[in-house]
């Protein structure tokens, strides 16, 4: 008896409201949000394929990590159905994405569109890489004692580098260098055949040689 009274109450509440303006059941119309369909109405396999493609561009709001096309949730199924109906009615991809974005926000697009601050998402990694490469190159060039970009030997606080055939000022060290050159290159006496005059060190040794 109590149940019957409650059902009557629910129906009564509804009837009271509905009586103000008797209408038929109508779901929210995408036309009021994104205008008339601007594409070509599809049917058959083309409709299914296009619906799947567009549904793949939408994020499932329930599971969030999957697209509407991939998600098995009830809400994703309903969203797929909505996409299917919109594609069938001739709405194009941008209109459909805009319709969902209008209610769910940009979040619903799996790929953030290239606009506003989203440019940072696309350009940020490339810009970061370029900036990093520039910083590394700069750091390497300015650091003393490292190989420069031209593959030159490390410099020593701006002093001119000794030539390839020069010898140290220390006589015993010079004799050792000459013997090494003789063994390594086969030069008689360790003297370069192209530079027979190179017998003395090109510059004065720093400090006292012991």
């Amino acid at each position: 008896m109590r149940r019957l009274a409650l059902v009557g109450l629910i129906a009564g509440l509804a009837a009271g409201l509905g009586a103000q303006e008797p209408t038929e059941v109508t779901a929210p119309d995408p036309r009021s949000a994104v205008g008339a369909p601007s594409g070509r109405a599809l049917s058959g396999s083309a409709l299914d394929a296009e619906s799947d493609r567009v549904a793949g561009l939408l994020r499932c709001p329930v599971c969030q990590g999957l697209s509407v096309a991939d998600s098995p949730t009830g809400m994703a199924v309903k969203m797929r159905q909505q996409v299917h109906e919109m594609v069938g009615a001739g709405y194009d991809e941008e209109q459909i994405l805009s319709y969902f974005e209008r209610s769910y926000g940009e979040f619903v697009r799996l790929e953030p569109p290239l606009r506003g601050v989203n440019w940072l998402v696309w350009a940020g990694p490339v810009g970061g890489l370029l900036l990093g490469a520039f910083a590394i190159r700069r750091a390497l060039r300015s650091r003393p004692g490292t190989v420069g970009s031209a593959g030159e030997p490390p410099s020593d606080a701006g002093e001119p580098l000794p030539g390839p055939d020069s010898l140290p000022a220390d006589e015993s060290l010079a004799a050792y260098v000459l013997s090494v050159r003789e063994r390594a290159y086969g030069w008689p006496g360790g003297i370069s055949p192209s530079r027979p005059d190179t017998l003395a060190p090109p510059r004065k040794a720093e400090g006292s040689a012991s």
Partner: protein
Amino acid sequence: MNRRVLIAGTALVVPLVAILLVGLGRDPHVVRSPLIGRAAPSFSLRPLGGGPPISLESLKGRAVALNFWATWCVPCVQEHEVLAGAARTWGAKAQFLGVVYEDQEDTALDYLRRKGSAYPSLFDEGGKAAIAYGVFGVPETFFISPEGRIVEKFVGPLTPSELSANLGKALEATP
């Protein structure tokens, strides 16, 4: 330390830390509805228990609390009494409407028979109303001004004070 390196490092790190601080202060599950401030999507849906369809258009001139709910949703059960009580209190100024989300009509009707109801609940065939309102889950309640504009969206179970505050905001909203 090289002065230029210090400046460049600060210019990079400070914005990143600021973004992190702002981001960490937010609930990542809450996405602000883009519908707030816009016209509420119109619909005309069949109420549970029979009767003619109810349209949002027919309710213009009164504030509307549009509550998406389901019988399987525990927070919805928690807020049921709050909504029913508020519907009785605010009945003269505001209209409460429920929309069944991802549920069976019979199950929802049976639930209302057991728990009682102070306002109509509508059946959203195909979930089109939930999609148009950008519903992520339940319960979610939209507060609509008498002119038909969405003033606020509340996610989660409402307390009496939260409900009153939001409904008051909807009633005070100027077109």
